[in-house]
């Protein structure tokens, strides 16, 4: 980093209130290069689709039913120069989203607008013809990707050098090893001079040296202010390379914000962090906090991602047996990284009287502070009349708050001044 000595440490303080700010909005002055609004993608079950004329007539009124929504109502805006990681479990819709943004699949709903030349590395060397030489394939592939002959002539040496295949460039591609094949494909794709690079898991192939090279190239693209969107299962990669993460789950975008927060959420949802709470004398307790959910307002659909300034409702589900105390007292702690309590919420002093069976206690936070991180919840239940503890439970369900700051739990306003 060769920034001038007095540059603000991370990011200049934003003068406006927190409402304006969100990780999703590109920094001022950088135009949106990809905008998806209300994008949904439905796949019709294959066995139902008429693939012959006969079926077309026979099953004209096939019942709609087991259609599959790979994406639902995705809204996303990506600004020039952002590096965005797309993560989620298998089948969560990552690759479908990438293909929709690349213009290969048509969204069933909504609209995608793209501003700039796209290079999509959905598969390296797609369209190579094994019978042709590497040289011919470079010309053909680059031509498919939108380059003119003159441009290819100019870039040819650079492509060959990048692929490190000069000695084989006039051999037929069918005699290449799979690694060499991929290297040539990557070399062509990155030389298309894309404004937007879409990468789908292709970094998983090739040897270590090649992967290193790919990552270096992506880092170079990043520094040149190009927009990069990549799908990967490597959350470490996202943490180290991306400005932003989009987490998909069953076609819904459940998180859009800082990689540090998103990866933590995803790890928890993928089960690499324990999701079950630990109860102290929990099984026998007459009052059990059975679940914690997060939403905007009481009763609205659960969500895990919040922005500073937004309303948050922490709903605690309680299960009371017949011999539960008449008044119970709840103590809720929001826990940050390293088990640091961030804030605490409790029921009024006299306690509440839920009665036997299931009930829900909502804690409504009207305005979230400027936090950055993913947070867990610790719950302690006690008897409001005696003050005796009943049970305690730590929940690993997390919610994330995407503050604007690059790092640090809190954001404060400050000025940097030079004094001599």
């Amino acid at each position, binding site marked *: 980093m060769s920034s001038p000595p007095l540059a603000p440490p991370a990011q200049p303080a934003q003068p406006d209130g927190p409402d*304006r700010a*969100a990780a*999703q*909005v*590109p920094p*001022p*002055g*950088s*135009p*949106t290069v990809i*905008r998806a*609004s*209300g994008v*949904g993608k439905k796949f019709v079950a294959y066995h139902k*689709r*008429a*693939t*012959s*004329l*006969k079926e*077309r007539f026979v099953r004209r009124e096939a019942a709609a039913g087991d259609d599959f929504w790979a994406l639902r109502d995705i*809204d996303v*805006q990506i*600004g020039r120069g952002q590096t965005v990681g797309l993560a989620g479990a298998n089948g969560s819709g990552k690759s479908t989203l990438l*293909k929709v*943004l*690349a*213009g*290969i*699949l*048509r*969204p069933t*709903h*909504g*609209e*995608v*607008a*793209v*501003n*700039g*030349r*796209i290079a*999509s590395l*959905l*598969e390296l060397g*797609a*369209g190579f*013809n094994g019978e*042709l030489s590497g040289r*011919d394939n470079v*010309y*053909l592939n680059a*031509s*498919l*990707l*939108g380059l*003119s*002959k003159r441009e290819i002539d100019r870039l040819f040496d650079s492509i060959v050098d990048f692929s490190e295949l000069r000695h084989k460039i006039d051999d037929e591609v069918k005699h290449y090893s799979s690694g060499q094949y991929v290297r040539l494909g990557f070399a062509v794709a990155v030389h298309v001079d894309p*404004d937007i690079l879409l990468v789908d898991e292709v970094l998983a192939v090739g040897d270590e040296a090649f992967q290193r090279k790919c990552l270096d190239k992506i880092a170079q693209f990043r520094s040149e202010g190009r927009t990069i969107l990549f799908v990967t299962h490597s959350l470490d990669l996202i943490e180290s390379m991306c400005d932003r993460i989009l987490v998909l789950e069953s076609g819904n975008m459940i998180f*859009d914000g800082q990689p540090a927060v998103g990866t933590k959420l995803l790890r928890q949802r993928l089960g690499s962090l324990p999701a079950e709470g630990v109860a102290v004398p929990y099984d026998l307790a007459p009052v059990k906090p059975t679940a914690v959910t997060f939403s905007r307002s009481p009763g609205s659909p659960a969500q895990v991602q919040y922005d500073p300034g937004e309303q948050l409702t922490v709903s605690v589900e309680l299960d009371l047996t017949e011999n539960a105390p008449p008044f119970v007292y709840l103590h809720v702690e929001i826990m940050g990284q390293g088990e640091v309590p961030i804030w605490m919420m409790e029921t009024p002093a006299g306690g509440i009287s839920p009665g036997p069976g299931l009930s829900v206690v909502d804690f409504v936070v009207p305005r979230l502070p400027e936090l950055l991180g993913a947070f867990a919840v610790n719950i302690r239940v006690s008897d409001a009349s005696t003050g005796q503890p009943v049970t305690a439970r730590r929940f690993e369900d997390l919610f994330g708050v995407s503050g604007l700051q690059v790092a640090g739990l809190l954001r404060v306003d400050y000025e940097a001044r030079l004094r001599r």
Partner: protein
Amino acid sequence: MSRVADLSTLPPSPPPGQGGPSPAQRPRTSRSGARHVDHRSRAQTRVRWELLRNLVRKDLKVKYKGSTLGFAWSLANPLLLLVVYTFVFQVVLDTGIPRFGIYLMSGLLVWNAFSGSVSAACGAVVANANLVKKVRFPLLVLPLSAVGFSAVHFLLQLLVLFVVILGLGYSLFGPELLLLVPAGVVALLFTVALSVLLAALNVRYRDTQHLLDVALVAWFWINPMVYAYGLIQNQLNDWTWVYLLNPMAVVVVTFQRAIYDPPPGNTTANGSASVIADTGYVFYLEHLAIAGLISLAMLWLGLRVFRRFQADFAEDL
């Protein structure tokens, strides 16, 4: 989840709501409903000559790679047909057409180019499934390059035919040779139209290819290539115009007029039927105009269907 952003470079956002804008109010979009704003991204969706040329060159290279005779093989098929049909239609069943070989070839070459193009184009998108599913490029180049591939062969075969005609000492150059220009244009229009249409249909309805194979066999016989045109006229009389609604029949008879030198009186050996359709020019120009209009209508339909279907190619493949 929608937020304010600087979208000065993008058209205004559609109103939020269930399911996005209705198709009627949605602006015209390219493949996949994605709108690509600047010229750099349009280079990836527009059909470019250079790309077309590269694809045709690739197909030629792949086809003749490692074969010693190379391009000469493209003459093998018409030569074989020449031998077989000459034997059948001049020796076994005497059609009474003088210089039958030249008569046959002047119509057959353009028909072969047509049927070869259409047949290859029909499978072009399906054959390139991997590419279509992974790379964004102007999909229209797939059927078009199949047409280009056949066109290259056709031109070379025509050249060989000319050389043979001159070598045998027959006359070739005359004003009628100019008819090749409008006939070639109509043939190209009609071929492109059908190729584009079938390429798109075949992605969704795979029966198209099989249907086409059968249709082409029948279609071959409703062009006057191995029999004299007059035989049809004698049968259909006032209804001959129906026969000529087939643009390929018009193209074939025009090619014959342009290349083949009819015998005196333009009749077969026994004098029962005329060999070529007409010895003037107006007949051909009139019918080419009609065939041209039919082809343009087909082209409009073909492009429309292709544009409509192509957004779902990646999904249907």
